[in-house]
């Protein structure tokens, strides 16, 4: 038995190898060990979604995944959603449509929206609202977030 766990995870395309405390949450590994502070923590109960990242291409709440459970997986965070100067269509749409205010929920919201569009490339308003039910925002009233996701869907999100 071991309280320390060896993990090998591909994070934003880069292979990361570490020995982590068994209880270390994926979000704390990303933030504190890898310095990827774009992924945020907003609650203790898997409600707010600020910590949403992609695990093997699907959205997960990284506050409710052990770093150990991610061993052998691919993780994408907001920092790795786009490369170079080009923005992901969702990032661009959130900017264009004023889909963020304080910005704290935004990385998780964008990562959740990316999974939503992956599952449903042309969602209705209602499907967007329900598709983002795992992400809380206190600033926007969600109106412009929905507009941003619609705009990004119209532009076609790369798989």
């Amino acid at each position, binding site marked *: *038995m*071991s*309280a320390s*766990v060896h993990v090998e995870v591909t994070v934003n395309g880069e292979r990361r190898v570490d020995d982590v*405390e*068994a*209880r270390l*949450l994926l979000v704390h590994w990303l933030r504190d060990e890898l310095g990827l502070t774009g992924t945020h*923590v907003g609650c*203790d*109960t*898997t*409600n707010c*979604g600020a910590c*949403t990242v992609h*695990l093997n291409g*699907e*959205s*997960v*709440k990284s*506050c*409710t*995944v*052990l770093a*150990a*459970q991610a*061993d052998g997986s691919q993780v994408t965070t907001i920092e790795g959603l786009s490369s170079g100067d080009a923005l992901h269509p969702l990032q661009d749409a959130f900017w264009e449509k004023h889909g963020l205010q304080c910005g704290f929920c935004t990385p998780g919201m964008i990562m*959740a929206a990316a*999974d*939503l569009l992956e*599952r449903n490339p042309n969602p209705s308003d209602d499907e967007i*609202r*329900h*598709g983002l*039910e*795992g*992400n809380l925002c206190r600033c926007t009233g969600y109106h412009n977030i929905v507009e941003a996701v619609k705009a990004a869907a119209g532009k076609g999100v790369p798989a």
Partner: protein
Amino acid sequence: MITAPFDYEAPETLDAAVRMLHENGVDAKLLAGGHSLLPLMKLRLAAPILLVDLRRVPGLHHIQRENGSWRIGAMTRHADLQDTPELGVVATVASHIADQQVRNRGTIGGSLAHGDPASDLPAVLLALDGEVTAQGPNGLRTIPASELFQDYLTTTLEHDEVITEVRLPATDDWGYGYEKFARRAEDWAMVGVCAVVKEAADGSCEDVRIGLTHMGSTPLRASATEAALRGQPLDADSIARAAEQAAEGTDPPGDLNATPDYKRHLARVLTRRALEAATRA
């Protein structure tokens, strides 16, 4: 936010997982998707000394149709159920669980083993008269849904048993409805009702099964309503009359959002609506 310390193993075989549970007693817990257990641990409401992670164990991730029933591996995620429309009511119910991120991690085996009467899937298993297979130190056994749920967060699984598969009868020719009542989209059900109805050739009710979520310390069947509807015409009147009995035999806990009386009322209303949905052409 930070769990108590624990040891961690991710065995590569089911036997090894069972052995680890067996050797470490009740303070060892199984980890599947972790979406019931880890939130409790982060609030330090649970503090196991060992987590045995099933992620490497083969043979627990499948959805197969066989002889008129479904065999679903215990590590099958809610998202996989949601994405398999052939599962009918199970796919629908799975799509109502929490939110997509949770559905991308949470598993059917974990949800059933957790035994939370507020969770969506236990009442479905009960309504469909499904069963689970569980591997323990003494081999594999089958536990019918009616014998699985014992009390609040308590099942008849031994601490060293692992659910390996969930078996559900296919309900291709049954109508179904799921009514989940919650304050917010991502919340647990205040009350949930899963109804499946088989219509006879003459339009009457050949059979009906109704599972109730969060109406007691375990998921429950609305047996009185089922009995009242069997053999009756599936029209609005008989559905409404039968649904009036939906809360019989329930003992719902009151909480922040609902008194027991209110929950009984909701059970009656939602049962009627679920039956109406199940019998809609």
